[in-house]
């Protein structure tokens, strides 16, 4: 299929490109920028006048719930939601059921993604067997099967020796480890930020130092083992400072933040709003502002959705008994675009959603160079819309952003040169 995307404002951070430019696509690749290749006759012309054309977004963390929790989401339903949000590559963490610690599970997910997936799915293998934190996983086999990195998901590896070995082994295989920094004992039983709100509501708190302490420990081990490491979903400004300092000292570390952490704080829990039950917890305004600043400066490399779709019952209980997480695929871009009002440039916003996550995952996508896979997101930067439950594609409707008005909406998404999403009434 040959596609011509005409008259759009092409923003491609990888090539520092920001200008109106036509994009020519053939056989799933980008074959022309500005100028049609010889003899190019499009099968489809997309008029992108007034729209922004950028690389398809890459989401560093999206729980697809398959295998194991199809009542919450499937690869089919969640990749459909992803492309509606302009996301063309999803990174799936290993805490599926069964855990991604064997090549069989990797193969299963790859197969399901090939059959039903609308977006690309890349996989993080388990860092330790069964995420148990005791035995390192068969990382070489998992790498050969296609895993792009290793993570222990939300299960902390308490035993520092095990963690050291896992990092050394990953470094041996030249693989990146993805780390959720939460001290296991300081966070045990907690569900909200320890502070004024946990005190008022009588909910068990997770102190900010649960994150900073673990980041400090992990940084020491990263320095010692030389592994390439990525910190997933930071929630405190102080942890970000520690990582920034380590990077300045030359450590190969990167970090991301979940989009909701840039817009919500502990105060949004109000009267036990379980839709704001997330892990790590929503923190203070100071943290939120520090994280936004981090996105602006690039100290936080990427923004991800930390997508966690749930069935209704998962949130229908007293706060402490609800499951954490937000269904976030469809608000990733809109929430990121909201940072335009906080002095973050559009180029940096798109960079944090495309080039940077691609680089962290070591993928060939995330840019619109000649010859690159034609994964493209086309959005209207001005269009206002309201997030309604009825319009969501994810199986999980668990989001505190229902009813929010956003500016900026995805109009077309292409994966491998194929239009996989078109906003109804777009053409």
């Amino acid at each position, binding site marked *: 299929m040959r596609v011509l995307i005409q008259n759009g404002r092409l923003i491609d951070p990888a090539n520092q490109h920001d200008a109106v430019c036509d994009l020519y696509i053939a056989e799933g690749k980008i074959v022309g920028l500005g100028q049609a290749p010889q003899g190019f006759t499009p099968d489809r012309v997309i008029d992108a006048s007034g729209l922004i054309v950028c690389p398809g977004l890459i989401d560093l963390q999206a729980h697809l719930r398959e295998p194991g929790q199809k009542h919450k989401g499937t690869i089919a339903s969640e990749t459909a939601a992803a492309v509606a949000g302009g996301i063309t590559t999803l990174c799936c963490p290993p805490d599926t059921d069964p855990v991604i610690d064997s090549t069989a599970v990797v193969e299963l997910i790859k197969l399901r993604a090939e059959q039903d997936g609308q977006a690309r799915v890349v996989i993080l293998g388990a860092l330790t067997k069964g995420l148990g934190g005791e035995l390192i996983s068969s990382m070489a086999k998992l790498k050969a099967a296609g895993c792009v990195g290793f993570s222990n998901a939300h299960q902390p590896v308490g035993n520092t020796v095990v963690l050291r070995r896992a990092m050394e082994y990953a470094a041996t295989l030249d693989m990146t480890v993805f780390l959720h920094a939460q001290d296991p004992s300081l966070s045990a039983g907690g569900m909200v930020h320890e502070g004024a709100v946990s005190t008022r509501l009588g909910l068990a708190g997770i102190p900010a130092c649960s994150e900073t302490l673990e980041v400090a420990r992990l940084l020491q081990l990263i320095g010692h083992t030389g592994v390439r490491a990525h910190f997933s979903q930071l929630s405190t400004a102080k942890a970000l400072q520690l990582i920034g300092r380590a990077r300045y000292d030359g450590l190969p570390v990167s970090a991301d933040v979940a989009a909701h952490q840039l817009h919500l704080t502990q105060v949004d829990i109000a009267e036990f709003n379980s839709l704001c039950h997330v892990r790590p917890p929503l923190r203070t305004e100071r943290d939120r502002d520090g994280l936004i600043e981090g996105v602006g400066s690039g100290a936080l490399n990427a923004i991800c959705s930390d997508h966690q779709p749930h069935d209704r*019952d998962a949130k*229908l209980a*007293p706060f402490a008994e609800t499951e954490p997480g937000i269904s976030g695929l469809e608000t990733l871009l809109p929430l990121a675009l909201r940072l335009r009002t906080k002095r973050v440039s559009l180029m940096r916003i798109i960079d944090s959603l495309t080039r940077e996550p691609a680089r962290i995952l070591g993928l060939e996508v995330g840019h619109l160079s000649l010859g690159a896979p034609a994964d493209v997101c086309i959005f209207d930067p001005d269009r206002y819309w309201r997030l309604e439950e009825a319009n969501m594609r994810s199986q999980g409707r668990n989001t505190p952003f229902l009813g929010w008005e956003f500016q900026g909406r995805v109009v077309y998404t292409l994966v491998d040169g194929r239009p996989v999403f078109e906003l109804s009434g777009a053409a």
Partner: protein
Amino acid sequence: MSRNIQLDPQGKLRHFITVEGLKRQMLVDILDTAASFMTVGAQKTKKVPLLRGKTVANLFFEPSTRTRTTFELAAKRLSADVLNLDIKTSATSKGESLLDMLRNLESMGVDMFVVRHASSGAAHFIAQHVAPNISVINAGDGCHAHPTQAMLDMFTIRQYKGEFAPLTVTIVGDILHSRVARSEIHALTTLGISELRVAGPKTLIPAEVEAMGVHVYEDMDAAIDGADVIIMLRLQRERMKGGFIPGEQEYFDLYGLSEKRLRRAKPEVIVMHPGPINRGVEIASEVADGKHSVILPQVTNGIAVRMAVMSMVLGRPEEVVAGGAS
């Protein structure tokens, strides 16, 4: 969803979940209504017909003897039919089964749920999901709130002290895990006392509690210096296992209320405790049984205050004042 789920569109009390967010006048109304019920308990026929034909279900997901008994007595004195349900919660019982159970009780025509639950926010959750004609009274949810206990304590304070404005009140002990303390703090700050102090080791003082309008003391002697009211909280044994404090004796030495310590307070100080008391752990027996103690009157007042709250959310309490007991 409106912020104050407890009020109906006319601003009347529909549920009683937390003291937080209620106006001072509403709290005073509860105390005044309770005062009018005090006579009922002293009469030969201890009943008024305010809730005749209404059904009250006590849903206790957490064991309790005293609170449940006083709620039961309060409901019966208001002539309501009472259903007691002690529900053993297992780790697997999740939201749906809780909601299913509520739906079942709703279908049986229950008018009011009195709920005690180990999870903070449980009463809120239930109030959000009950049918519009049903009221919910929070009999304690996790570490969040125990508003009827706080109101009976306010009632007791008013009974002995009259005015709230000049008072210095000190709450001592495990503030971190105490739903009673949280509700008392909201009530005392709303009623406008002069000074509110909390005292305990840092391990039992919740983060940023100052934001609730209290002064934090680590030194017990300083905390009760010149106090008009001292509220001692129960120290749960499991706090030792959790490593919050090293042992009972050391706790008593640092924060226990002894007769000697009590002399630092005002001469006419009253000593309160939500019960059940641990003699020799947070309070010396001589103090618990001494002339400053109002621990037993608290229990008596509990019935009148719970009658007041129940009648305010379901009935027309002004009738009792006009018509008296029948």
